[in-house]
């Protein structure tokens, strides 16, 4: 396809020959030449070629009848898609703080050394690229990585060594040892959700007897609130959608579980998929939708085929498709769309944009998705866990459901426990459980702090461990990262700040520039050049981000720093110079190159302290 393409790679000949044309035709035909499927088409092209060749962009632009610049614009938004060759093996180390605490940085260095490649670059022979990526949702079995989009967990020096060897030998991924790709559920505590005995269709039978409006009443009575973190009342959301007239209504399951430290949806999609789809079907019955989408984060690509099998099985059992369970006119089906490495797509309006094949930029709101969602039609977007709870609420009865948990937080919550504890994994508790209780159950000792609900949540210190999880006190999407007294909370905050800068969509000025400036400030402090002035800067940036950002990402980007500053001030103080101000530019550091060239490192080759 490209005249100067390297030889020796498995996809060497990329001239748009007949085979390529045929392949691209198959892909666009599979998606009915529908430009709203653009992201899915691009993901499939990348799975064929290892990247998205420019000639393929021109070709599909013509086939989909859209400008090629739009395709480039979309592809470049998602960090898993590449517009240039990116190696036959694309290795991404999960870079959550929990991966780091388990030694992921050293493992990455080891692999780079073994394969002679610099992080972020493609090896000279086009064989491999190695880089980091945001949390891959495997914190209970880290350190983890993705190879060509597939997850490998429990990395050790030996395993990394073996993977390096397989890559060097160009062994196709399909021939790698199966146990590399084994993902455990790690369920340690079950309540109403994980312990349920429902069979597929049980709740739908009850729901059909109730009918749409009564389902919504029941959900309202159950006081079910969204489990994605914001806690919006589910019944109210469904009602608003049902009451909006439109050409079509849609149900979307948000399985873009991107908040670092959260992996409960992974477990639900692995072992409770029927319950998730039953919840979507229930929502469809309630709001009058015929089409549903499950938006699956790219990191969980390995779940795509198993989930499709479950869908097929439900179609065979008349739990999806036409006239579901014999009910005339109750038609509903579900399609799975993949994400491609963009945390922001967990925000519901960005998710809808992505579902429409666009860049995942959050929309201006109002209007909200319940009235103007997918294709501007009324749409409910619910978290994976919320949909499971809706099934439980209908099946066990609203009043029974409501009796579990606390007054403002009914039912139970899945907690994803990771970090410094001997038993990381999934724990289900009725709402109202204290942090201390969770710490006891997972066996954590000498705990210094717990990060609740991921980087955008809050950092809770020891004296607050009696605080309770629930909307009354500590709302959470489920992440529970434990840090013991050997950990430096400054480094935790710095990791989170890097995460936000990497995941900012770049739409609005404050978040695009502000998250980067925050990152630079934290790096400056880490390098030993921080002063009190920099801490003031952080507070100033926080104010700007809080008040002017377009969405929640920007508004929460300073949280990790502010929370750790509040409780762990010494972590910062120890790093600060006793000056009021020091410029970001390191004068002495700038002479390093000259020192290297002249082979000098004596006192005369350094600036005197009073000169700096």
């Amino acid at each position, binding site marked *: 396809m490209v005249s100067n393409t390297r030889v020796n790679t498995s996809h060497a000949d990329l001239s748009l020959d007949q085979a390529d044309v045929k392949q691209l035709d198959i892909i666009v035909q599979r998606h009915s030449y529908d430009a709203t499927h653009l992201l899915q088409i691009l993901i499939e092209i990348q799975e064929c070629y290892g990247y998205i060749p420019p*000639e393929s962009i021109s070709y599909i632009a013509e086939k989909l009848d859209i*400008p090629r*610049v739009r395709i480039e*614009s979309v592809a470049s938004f998602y960090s898993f898609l590449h517009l240039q060759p990116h190696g036959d093996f694309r290795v991404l180390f999960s870079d959550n703080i929990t991966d780091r605490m388990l030694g992921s940085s050293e493992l990455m260095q080891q692999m780079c050394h073994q394969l002679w490649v610099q992080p972020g670059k493609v090896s000279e022979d086009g064989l491999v690229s190695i880089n980091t990526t945001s949390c891959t949702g495997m914190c209970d079995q880290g350190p983890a990585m993705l190879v060509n989009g597939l997850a490998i967990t429990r990395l050790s020096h030996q395993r990394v060594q073996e993977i390096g060897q397989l890559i060097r030998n160009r062994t196709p991924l399909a021939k790698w040892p199966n146990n590399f790709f084994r993902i455990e559920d790690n369920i340690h505590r079950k309540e109403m959700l994980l312990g349920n005995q429902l069979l597929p269709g049980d709740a739908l039978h009850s729901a059909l007897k109730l009918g749409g409006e009564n389902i919504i009443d029941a959900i309202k009575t159950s006081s079910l609130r969204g489990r994605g973190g914001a806690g919006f009342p589910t019944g109210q959301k469904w009602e608003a959608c049902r009451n909006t007239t439109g050409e079509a209504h849609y149900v979307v399951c948000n399985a873009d579980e991107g908040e670092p430290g959260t992996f409960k949806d992974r477990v639900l999609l692995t072992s409770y998929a029927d319950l998730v789809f039953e919840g979507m079907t229930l929502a469809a019955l309630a709001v009058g939708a015929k089409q549903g989408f499950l938006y699956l984060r790219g990191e969980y690509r390995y779940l795509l085929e198993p989930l499709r099998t479950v869908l097929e099985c439900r179609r065979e059992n008349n739990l999806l498709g036409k006239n579901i369970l014999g009910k005339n006119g109750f038609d509903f089906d579900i399609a799975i769309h993949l994400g491609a490495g963009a945390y922001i797509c967990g925000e519901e309006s960005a998710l809808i944009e992505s579902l429409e094949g666009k860049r995942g930029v959050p929309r201006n709101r109002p209007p909200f998705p319940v009235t103007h969602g997918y294709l501007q039609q009324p749409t409910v977007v619910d978290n994976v866990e919320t949909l499971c709870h809706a099934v439980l609420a209908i099946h066990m009865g609203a009043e029974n459901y409501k009796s579990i948990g606390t007054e403002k937080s009914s039912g139970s919550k899945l907690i994803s426990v990771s970090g410094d504890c001997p038993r990381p994994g999934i724990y289900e508790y009725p709402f109202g459980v204290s942090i201390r209780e969770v710490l006891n159950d997972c066996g954590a000792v000498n705990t210094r702090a717990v990060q609740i609900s991921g980087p955008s949540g809050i950092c809770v210190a020891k004296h607050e461990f009696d605080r309770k999880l629930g909307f009354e006190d500590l709302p959470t999407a489920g992440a529970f990262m434990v840090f013991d007294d050997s950990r430096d909370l400054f480094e935790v905050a710095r990791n989170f700040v890097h995460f936000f800068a990497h995941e900012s969509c770049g739409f609005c*000025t404050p978040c695009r520039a502000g998250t980067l*400036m925050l990152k630079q400030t934290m790096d400056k402090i880490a390098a030993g050049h921080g002063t009190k002035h920099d801490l003031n800067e952080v507070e100033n940036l926080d104010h700007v981000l809080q008040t*002017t950002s377009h969405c929640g990402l920007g508004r929460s980007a300073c949280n990790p720093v502010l929370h750790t500053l509040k409780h762990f001030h010494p972590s910062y103080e120890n790093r600060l110079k006793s000056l009021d101000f020091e410029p970001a530019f390191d004068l002495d550091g700038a002479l390093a190159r000259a020192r290297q060239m002249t082979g000098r490192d004596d006192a005369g080759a350094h600036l005197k302290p009073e000169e700096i």
Partner: protein
Amino acid sequence: MNDSFQLDGAEITIEEGQTVLQAALTAGHYIPHLCYHPEFKPHGSCKLCTVKVNGRTAASCTMPAEAGMTVENNIEELNALRRTLVQMLFAEGNHFCPSCEKSGNCVLQALGYDLGVHSAGFRHLYPDRPVDASHPEILLDFNRCILCELCVRASSEVDGKSVFALSGRGITKHLIVNAESGLLKDTSIALDDKAMQVCPVGVILKKRIGFSQPIGERRYDQRPISAQALDDAPPHTPEVGSNCDVCEDAP
């Protein structure tokens, strides 16, 4: 009788479907703004037009105007935020006003002066953004791009061409053109395109006319932007004057 809201104590009449910024401009009241253009659907990305609506901050260009709202605009707290946002825009690109063809006609520069931005405030990022001089008539200097998407919107909505789009994400976000070569010469852009007229800074420039109007005699050299922005406001209702006195008297 139309609905109305309060803007810094003044009564602003709302016309059907207007946002806070649109209603304010129509009524002759200035709210600083950058990515908003009266001919296009509000976008809401620069956040310069942030106001306080009933005590909560919101971008006034996208916030639907509602009866009874209390909107705060010209207060130090908000102007301080706007100064920081302008500083951020200056720091993330490469803006060298003295040598820029757009100096004096540049909205970013004019806002900087008008809001009293006296220093960079942040460490400059000095991004590497090569210019595209491939086109015989038009120069693209990406160094000055503030990602307002006005050219993107003009080219697709008015010109029907989609010459421009944004690529990348976060701080790496940048303007690209519709060509496999990535060069402007291979696009269908023309000098009379709307996209040629909307850039608020000095990215999209017609070649061979540089500095034909001397610096010092340009638009914002005459009067500050707050006194002029209303000239571009949407069509006025007959009973409203063309400019408000308060703005005209501003320094």
